[in-house]
């Protein structure tokens, strides 16, 4: 009986982690390099569904760790509006701390309205409000950095 349960669990686990497609494999390999990497525009062209590919890599490619981070950067640079729900998760969920730090570190790259929304979310709903506030205060865009000022409006 226990072996049946184990088998069912393994089947369920396999179902939860679909095998990567050839496109996903190719983008994974392209993002694995120690230094130079293709631009996000070039990476987009490698996939029929670039956002889906990046999100798959972020979720399933755990090693090397920079693959998911590089994929996340391309989501931010080229697909931010379409990925709004995912970006909101990055800044509030503790288990996505690395993605939250990446997003806030490059927040100037996002469209300004979205950047401001995510900055506020990170400072008020995220797991490390003080740390995020310090980082947002260093944003190059004055309108974003101003959100971290002590007197800034709360959401």
């Amino acid at each position, binding site marked *: 009986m226990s072996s049946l349960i184990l088998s069912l669990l393994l089947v369920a686990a396999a179902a939860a982690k679909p095998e*990567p497609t050839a496109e996903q494999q190719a983008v*994974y390999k392209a993002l*694995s*390099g*120690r*230094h*130079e*990497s293709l631009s996000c525009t070039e990476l987009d062209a490698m996939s029929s569904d670039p956002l889906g590919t990046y999100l798959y890599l*972020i979720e*399933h*490619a*755990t*090693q*090397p*760790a*920079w693959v*998911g*981070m*590089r994929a*996340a*950067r391309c989501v931010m640079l080229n697909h931010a509006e379409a990925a709004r729900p995912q970006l909101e998760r990055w800044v509030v969920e503790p*288990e*996505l*701390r*690395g*993605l*939250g*730090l*990446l997003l806030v*570190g*490059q927040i*100037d790259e996002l469209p300004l309205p979205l950047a401001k929304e995510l900055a506020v979310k990170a400072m008020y709903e995220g797991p490390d409000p003080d740390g995020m506030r310090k980082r947002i205060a*260093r944003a190059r865009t004055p309108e974003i950095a101003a959100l971290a000022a002590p007197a800034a409006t709360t959401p």
Partner: protein
Amino acid sequence: MTLLLVLACIGKPGAGDDSGVAADDMLSRESWVDSSNRDGMIEIPVELDGSASAFMVSVESDYYPVLETLTGPDGRTVLTWEDWYDSDNSLTYAFFWGTKAMAFNWPVREVDGPLAAGTWTVGVAMIDGSGFYANNVDAEVIVHRKADPDLAQGQVRARIVWAQGQGQDPDVVAAAEQAVERWREVWAMHGLTLVESWHDSELSSNLGFADSGSAKVEENAERFDGRELILVLGESISGASDTYGIAGGIPGSIEPNLNSHVTVAWLAHAGTNGNFNDDEIRLMGETMAHECGHFMGLFHPVEWNYDAWDALDDTEDCRTWQSCENKLGENLMFPYPICDWSSCAPQPDLTGQQKGVSQRYIGAL
């Protein structure tokens, strides 16, 4: 090494010899300020007495110093940029325009040595921002020589410098300390003994200087002895949290200058959850060893597209990803780790000639 501070001692070697034999008898240093001639060249004499096993010439200027030729004591040209500039094999970045602080370490390979006694001449072109030769421009020249009788073993001193505030996060500190142990372990396999010390700094945690160099890097390096590698640990590189490590040159100079740094970004190693596991710590340690390998003169044995290689004979000039991964996948200097989405294979290996390059680096004593 600020140019303005040494303008008063313009002259040929000896006039600005400010330190003579360094505290460690193996290493000596001299410096002076020189000017390019009517052809835009500075001809740098390097006097060797027969005991030197390697020398390094570092040149820093407001212009772009580029290595053109190396001439031996017998007047024979032993190295010229024309043989290497368009080559598919890489020997040194000193040939390439793009930085205001050039470093050239010689010999690179065993076949390039040993060094004969006499006067060697390093021909350096001074190039302006448009790519033209610039005459009558000043540059600071530093020549290091080492008299190391044992090129199978070497000690490398490394200053590990936290970018601003980074040394306060206990989880990051613990991961970095374990990663350094992996770095030490890998280097020990190749006769390199790592002797490190840890320091705080005011360098930005977003290591924005990594690509282009910075006066802040030079200012940071000037705190130290001028004879060690400097590894800067920060959160990200140039705002892009996806870049995880860069060396300031291949090779880089041990003299404090705009590019005297190896930078490593911890966040790209920690991944999407921002926390380190054992594999990620090991990879970060191998990144430290890999980037410092670049700084000591090592190129990737094969580049990313399998169409360019280092200049060594015992690293396979493979041409497909399958053959390259099979033959070089465990090499420390391979351009990417071999992974299966959830784990990566260790990459500790160096070939005999790669070890030789690292041992001939001026900072391996």
